[in-house]
């Protein structure tokens, strides 16, 4: 299976950086979609098949927490894998996001942290992708 990934972040630089990290991670990526805020992100999810959302928190128009609540309230997207990729440091806000079933990757992140979190939240193991000689975090070549 190859992932269709949606990156929702108001920073074009961060979208490009996360996209580059995904391409270099060795994960099977079918497509990378981008949105500058939660509202556009929801429209894309309505129109396209998305397996995984990488979601910033602080964004204009619709922030990440609002978008996540919309996703969880919709039966079609209730179980969609979501990883929060943010500088958010408030324990209160992070706890609320985790209660909504999101994993957290804190910026700045080493590339292998993002890859390992994706593997964890999608339930896919290294062995499934790389065989019995699976790459480990120590052997990522960025």
């Amino acid at each position, binding site marked *: 299976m190859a992932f269709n990934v949606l990156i929702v972040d*108001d*920073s*074009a*630089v*961060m979208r*490009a*950086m996360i996209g*580059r990290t995904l391409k270099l991670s060795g994960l099977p990526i079918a497509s990378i979609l981008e949105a500058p805020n939660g509202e556009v992100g929801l429209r894309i999810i309505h129109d396209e098949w998305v397996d995984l959302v990488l979601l910033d928190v*602080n964004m*204009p128009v619709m922030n990440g927490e609002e978008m996540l609540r919309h996703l969880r309230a919709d039966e079609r997207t209730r179980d969609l894998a979501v990883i929060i990729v*943010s*500088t*958010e*440091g*408030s*324990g*209160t*806000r992070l706890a609320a996001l985790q209660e909504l079933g999101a994993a957290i990757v804190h*910026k*700045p*992140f*080493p590339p292998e942290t993002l890859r390992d979190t994706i593997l964890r939240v999608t339930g896919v193991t290294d062995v499934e992708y790389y065989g019995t000689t699976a790459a480990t975090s120590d052997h990522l070549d960025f």
Partner: protein
Amino acid sequence: MSNTTEQLLRQATISTFENLAFLCLEDDNAVSADEPPVDAVVAVDFHGPMRGRLVLRTSSNLLPVIASNMMGEDEAQRMPMQRDALGEIANVVCGNLMPMLVGAEAVFRLDAPHWGTETTDVRSSDTPVSSVRFDVEGGRAQAELYVFAGRDWLDAARLAHATA
């Protein structure tokens, strides 16, 4: 201001440059006449228990290096993306610094990074509560923390660190 604030600003800046831009910063304590200028300036305003600004200055020759390391060669060719890359670094430094300073329960809102003259003109008479300087890849970087309101939060945090 306190050594604690300076240490935390240094820690947040070094960590962000290393992890986002793959650049190692070295402390720059000596000022010499022939060192490269820090002529690229970006700032992030923060609002919460404290209100203020994180200003990040770098030598402009570092901009393509930072952008290339973050996004790859193709995207890094364009000047707007080079500026945005520095802005994103400032944003991440600020976002990480706030809970380090006042604790993880506080909620802050960060404005979008703003660039250049609009940053340097405003409040130019203010003195940063903390400032750190670094050498990096043939250039320099400097981070400054300004607090316009809520400085008592910094004092409380310093006291908490001292008694911990």
